[in-house]
């Protein structure tokens, strides 16, 4: 790795470690600009602007690797997480369903996936209308059953969103 920034090296190590597990012929594309910035390092201020995904599988699934500490995760719903939020919205907008993209967090840094889901829930709850509008079909279907922004906010406010299958896209590996 030519980039000496430790966060970049850590993020790339996490991604490469997981990508190794995919079978031959499973990977369709790597996002070309990922190595240029601090895209998936432990730095939510500098999520690669314009990057659409880290890895695209041959079946169309997009994967985003995040090697974040818990301290960093807790910033995603704050103003410091603006770049992360923008990228997350792009995923939501372009998704066919909640299995068509996947966030992979680093198990070596966080031990409990619910800690991550709580932070996503916080962000979604605070921006429910806007997030629902991005892709209503992603929420309003027979599997997830969230028909509008108000319902999305109510689920988040009642701490029920973290149990919804919608969060299947969040993984800890």
């Amino acid at each position, binding site marked *: 790795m030519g980039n000496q920034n430790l966060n970049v090296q850590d993020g790339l190590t996490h991604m490469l470690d997981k990508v190794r597990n995919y*079978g*031959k*012929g*499973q990977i*369709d*594309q790597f996002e070309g600009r990922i190595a240029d910035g601090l895209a998936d390092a432990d730095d939510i201020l500098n999520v690669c602007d*314009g990057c*659409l*995904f880290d890895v*695209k*599988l*041959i*079946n*169309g*699934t997009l994967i985003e690797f995040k090697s974040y500490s818990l301290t960093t995760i807790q910033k995603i719903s704050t103003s410091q997480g603006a770049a992360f939020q923008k990228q997350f919205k*792009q995923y939501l*907008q*372009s998704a*066919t*369903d909640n*299995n068509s993209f*996947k966030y992979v967090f680093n198990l070596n840094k966080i031990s409990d996936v619910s800690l991550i889901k709580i932070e996503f829930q916080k962000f979604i709850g605070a921006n429910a*209308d806007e997030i*629902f*509008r991005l892709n*209503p079909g992603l929420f*309003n*279907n*027979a*599997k997830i*059953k969230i*028909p*509008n*922004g*108000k*319902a999305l906010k*109510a*689920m988040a406010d*009642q701490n*029920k969103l973290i149990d919804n299958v919608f969060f299947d896209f969040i*993984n800890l590996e």
Partner: protein
Amino acid sequence: MINNKKTISKVNKFDLSDNNVIIHQGELNLSVLRSYDLTPIKEYVDIPYLQDIKVNDDLTVLVSSEDGDFEILDKNYEKIDFDKEETSSFTGTIYSSCLSVYIYDLDKLEQISGLFDVNDKQVRWMNDLVYSPMCFDEYAIGINGHLIRCLDSKNGKLVWEFDISILKSYTDKWGSSKSCEVVKIIGEYDNIVWMSLTNQYLLAFDKSTGTVKHKLREIESFKCNWSLSAIPDPYGMIINSFKGKIIGFMFEFYWEINCSTGEIELTDLTDQFKDAEIRCTRPDFAYDGKLIYFLQDTPGKIGVFDTDNKELVYQYRFEEMYNRELMPIEIKYYNNNLYVLDS
């Protein structure tokens, strides 16, 4: 040949009617545009953010807002007055002049669904038997957990149900074993309703009795090193009523399913598409009965596939705009024009 005739920015939603394109742009503006040059012919500034835009057969435009009600516009795009207090909002596609409607309880996080009759301007019925039913004439079909249920569209009473949990579970993309779920109700042909499932099954029901007419999955002749020898994708399918076939297209595969016999014919286009450096990566393609217009998201392209000759006949590459790669997410076709929504 595809030429970019016009670009309109900040479009959130769009749909097509006979001669017009209806767009929702920015926060509040709903516009009706002439389809051939996208010139505005009517604009609204008093309709709040729209969840969805649908156009039914007799050109009545139906619009939902996130506040829970919806508007019905007549052929001149004038609002029609009706009592909206009975329902919360509509949720789905318009079938047989019916809308799926619902009331959502924000405390219990539960909802009941029903049908709204567009002609009578009133709710026919509501209950908790199905979520967002789709109306097929006298029957309304929907899902409730692992149950596929068919209700009488006039009164909402249960006609038949089918438990999909009897079908085998499947391994998802990440290796987890999961019970199968309905992905999409594809549509109806000759009184048979077709739906796709997560475990790559395709089920066809007699809509009046619930009898399973076809249960399809495997395609023995289809060999691919990254996919099962089965129907390649549960989303990328539509019914061509004229041909009596399901038309399927996704990745580099084109398949036809004879709705009467259940026979599947798949064409593997891997070599052809590899040479052309294109794949279909969005399942909602447009189709004119002969040509399929499909999207590749990155790098952004439109592909045109001739279903008769089974060959790619044209491709269009989007240029970068606003210093970024365009990622097309939706395509519609009408009267020699393609309308593409970019992310």
